[in-house]
């Protein structure tokens, strides 16, 4: 068995040049490429019949994925899987990837990092690349070897790319691997939820809003049942005091250990716009008097719409100068701290307040404003 896995390691990523629809390598290379002669075991009833292979090939052909939106490293991984014909060998390759994943630091094995909808326990962590602040890196772990393998694919395939690239990866790519991974959205789809959580966390890193201010409660639609949280979670009591056992419509108040639904991120849409895939392509000037004066425009907009009692707009773009997302906007005006005290925020949750501000500054977000750090209070709170 170990000789098999070492043969698999010989497959280098350089094979990514072609994306074969049908495997171009015979399924027996492992046995015939070695100088030592092997006695092929008689074909046992457990080995894979031809019909299943054809089924896999059909699935791959049916998967319509635009490969160009996938990060290069992920494309390499896909190519590698496509050179492996037998499903059993594919699973071995998957396990092999999982074995390469370094264990996750236990302090990250928290609810905030747990993927909902896995019968096994899966944790995912996203953090900024130390060298390249626009890039996201991931770490993950699982107690299930196959899930760990899938997590490893995602970790290796997606790490080191900007959040927007990560967020645009379509789940359908997994069909190309030929693993018969289901993509039916359901609370039990570990792979799908893993990818979504990674994408959310990547975008979250770029929202500039602190983690503690985000709760996945009031905006969550179709949340996964908290019942899949991992049975050994100490927060559960026999009497079911679990506050994050949410149904679709129930709201249990602000839960700071985020009960991510996997479906909605409060600022997700806005942030994708705000970052703009074209950060490397240079500046998009806003139609409103060019790049200068953004601070002034923000002030005016907020003053007009929110009639704030207090308003502070601080340009902190200098703190972010030099990372890829900013490069196109070298003149600053990309990151701001906002402090707004307004009666308009009364009765609104933190999430709704931020959304309100973002909505008002849409134009700026689409013309080079990168991120906002918002402190939104009502007059009584200030």
């Amino acid at each position, binding site marked *: *068995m*170990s000789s*098999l*896995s070492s043969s698999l390691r010989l497959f280098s990523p350089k094979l990514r040049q072609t994306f074969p629809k049908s495997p171009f390598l015979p399924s027996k290379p492992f046995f015939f490429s070695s100088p030592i002669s092997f006695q092929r075991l008689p074909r046992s009833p*457990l080995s*894979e*019949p*031809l*019909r*299943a292979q054809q*089924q896999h090939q059909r699935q791959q052909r049916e998967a319509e994925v635009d490969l160009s939106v996938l990060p290069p490293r992920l494309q390499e991984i896909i190519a590698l899987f496509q050179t492996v014909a037998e*499903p*059993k060998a594919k*699973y*071995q390759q998957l*396990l*092999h990837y999982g*074995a390469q994943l370094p264990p996750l630091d236990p302090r990250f094995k928290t609810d905030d990092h747990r993927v909902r909808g896995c*019968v*096994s*326990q899966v944790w995912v962590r996203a953090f900024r690349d130390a060298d390249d602040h626009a890039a996201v890196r991931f770490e993950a772990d699982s*107690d*299930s*070897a*196959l*899930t760990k393998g899938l997590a490893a694919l995602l970790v290796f395939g997606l790490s080191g790319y900007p959040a927007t690239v990560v967020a645009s990866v379509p789940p359908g790519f997994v069909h190309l691997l030929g693993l*018969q991974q289901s993509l039916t959205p359901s609370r039990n789809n570990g792979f799908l939820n893993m990818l979504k959580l990674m994408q959310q966390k990547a975008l979250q890193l770029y929202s500039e809003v602190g983690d503690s201010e985000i709760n996945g409660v009031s905006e969550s639609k179709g949340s996964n049942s908290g*019942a899949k949280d*991992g*049975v*050994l979670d100490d927060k*559960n009591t*026999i*009497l*079911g005091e679990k506050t994050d056992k949410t149904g679709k419509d129930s709201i249990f108040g602000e839960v700071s250990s985020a009960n991510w639904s996997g479906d909605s991120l409060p600022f997700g849409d806005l942030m994708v716009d705000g970052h703009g895939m074209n950060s490397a392509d240079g500046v998009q000037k806003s139609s409103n008097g060019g790049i200068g004066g953004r601070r002034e425009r923000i002030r005016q907009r907020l003053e007009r719409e929110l009639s704030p009692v207090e308003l502070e707009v601080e340009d902190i773009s200098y703190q972010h100068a030099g990372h890829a997302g900013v490069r196109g906007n070298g003149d600053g005006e990309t990151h701001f701290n906002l402090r707004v005290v307004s009666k308009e925020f009364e009765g609104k949750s933190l999430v709704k307040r931020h959304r309100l501000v973002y909505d008002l500054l849409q134009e700026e977000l689409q013309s080079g404003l990168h991120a906002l750090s918002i402190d939104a209070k009502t007059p009584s709170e200030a």
Partner: protein
Amino acid sequence: MMASFCHFPASPPHQSLSKLLSPLRRPRPHPFLPNVLCIFNPNRNRIRAGSQFRRLSLSSSSIALPPEELDSSSLGDLTRPDFPILHQEVNGFNLVYLDNAATSQKPTAVLKALNKYYESYNSNVHRAIHSLSAEATDEYEQARTKVAAFINASKPKEIVFTRNATEAINLVAYSWGLSNLRSGDEILLTIAEHHSAIVPWQLVAQKTGASLKFVGLTKEEVPDIEQLKELLSVKTKIVVIHHVSNVLGSALPIEDVVAWSHSVGAKVLVDACQSIPHMVVDVQKLDPDFLVASSHKMCGPTGVGFLYGKSELLSAMPPFLGGGEMIADVFQDYSTFAEPPSRFEAGTPAIGEAIGLGAAIDYLMGIGMQRIHDYEKELANYLYLSLLAIPNVRIYGPAPSETVHRASLCSFNVENIHPTDIATILDKQHGVAIRSGHHCAQPLHRSLGISASARASLYFYNNKKEIDVFIRALKDTIDFFISFQ
């Protein structure tokens, strides 16, 4: 040295194991295993929480063998042709369906009954005058009578059709529970109950101020009956208890539990989901106040289940769901209600499905529940033995013995391999369908110290050959993962 049970050099595994258990071959010493038949030792403490993994070990006590011959035309072989769904390939392999505790397959007789209903006499029941409706109503009420006869209820009106057992339990919780429980009252359950038997009572307890008490497991991994007796008190108002556990495979002495509960004035609700499909259940003998089951686990369609309730209890209970059918007269600001069972059957029921359930009961009665039970006992022992022989496999629940009969299911874990991994590869690489997860029994898993388990569960249309395929596939799967560790 105790060799693994299945490593017989020359003969194919399924034959050798069957022969070993066959009464035709009386106990002559086998070269490897001198006391081959003396497997079950009721005294041996096999179960330790945590990391005890099994070795095959023998003792000198023995078990009587089942009287029927275990030859090639077993009940499984005889009934298999009735189930078209079993004859297919998944992932290129013949399907081996071992997830019957989750849901059972349906024989053609049931499919035909469903079809016939929709093709010939589909019509709303209890309402209209015309012939189609009369026929539908007849068949629907006949199905009710069949269910009553199946469990030996005294009258058909003690059977309330629901959507499934879960809804039936909710019915009792919200209707009986809300009007009978108050602050300080206790609801007694076991730690091994299905979520459907726990959660409705949690919800109702919150509303009424009652509290839930749980009976734990013994070291043999069965609910602790002695502890149950101790926990019973005048404060106990209802005992909610399973008949057969969907994870442990154990059966509880319902007659005794009911007798003890009644003596302190507590009612008993029996969850018979895993017992009714597999054995004779006689509510006159067991004497529960309420009993619930689902059609889909007993060869019937999904979408229908039933609640059995003693008529004096049902008559005193307020409605659960409101609507048509369950009323007598409706005015603007109040309504009067029908007698049970109608009182608890609001709206148009799953008519075709109830009739399908009736057809399933006919089919099962045609075989005979005792015969099904006896056959499954063989399967249960064979499955347990075969699993036991695999190194590093830990089975949950009691070991079978003369006094302890297991259901034909095994929940298990393999050391260092996640059950989901096992189930995935069994499916993708072998076409064997088992379940992995907590089986709707999270408190039980927590008390066993695990987060999930794998479970293979059989029904009367499975056979020993399929168990052999499963065991071979499991070993192959285990090897697959071990090679990566």
